[in-house]
């Protein structure tokens, strides 16, 4: 699955990232954002990056719905 960077409007060099992505929705603070595999594991281990609430696998769905 290809992930474009959110910030691709300029004329600079950009990194094109080809990583599996997941959409995370915090069951506590209801914030939603896109994460890669590494961040998915970090969330499952350490909790939501914003509120710290525990994260379970069902809070993460495959695919990206984050706004570009």
């Amino acid at each position, binding site marked *: 699955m290809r992930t474009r960077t959110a910030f691709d409007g300029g004329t600079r060099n950009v990194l*094109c990232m080809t990583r599996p992505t997941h959409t995370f929705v915090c069951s506590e603070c209801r914030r939603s954002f896109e994460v890669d595999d590494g*961040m998915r594991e970090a969330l499952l281990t350490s909790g939501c990056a914003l509120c710290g609430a525990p994260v379970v696998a069902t809070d993460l769905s495959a695919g990206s719905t984050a706004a570009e």
Partner: protein
Amino acid sequence: MGAGIRAEVSLPASSPSPFDGVLDGSTPVYSVQRTRRSVEPEGDGGSKETVVIEFTASTDLRLPEHVETVFDYGEKAAYRFEAPCVSESPFATLDRHGVPTADAIVRDGRLLVTFHATDLPTLRRVLGELQESCADMQVVRLLQSSSTPEESDLVTVDRSELTERQREVLATAYEAGYFDHPKGANASEVAATLDIDRSTFTEHVAAAQRKLFAAMLG
């Protein structure tokens, strides 16, 4: 390999962003740089800091008087203005945490900022303070450094390899759905939009694709 996190966050371009009162909601900004400047006021007052913002945007902008054009690139220009240091600004927040801004643009009235946090606790602190200063802060994407080099699949694409015309042709074709399946527009339709021959259009696309694929697959 570091365990850092790349964070992409979206905030309003209005206050507390330094672009408040400078840009209207529809003006895209392609890059932002900034530096702090120490100002010695007249009298015996101590020095105070301001921030100098430079940004790249279209040349045909109507901007407030205090924004000056510092370089004209043709279709784009670099603009500069000076503003007071505002502690609630997202850039000031990153400064306080010693986190440089990796990238910043403005699109659709939103300031999109990318930064790298060295670890999750640092990320939490930065995000918490950004949210405190701006309740409308949204996290767009978080990426963590791969734990093994094999998992990384990054390539650098230098878009300056493309000519302005090739970029325009690609962007128009992309927006028209030329690269979709099924196609939203065929070559003749996109060529007509660009007011060029179909053969010229396909030549531009082929040349651009060769450059992009060389970078992606090389």
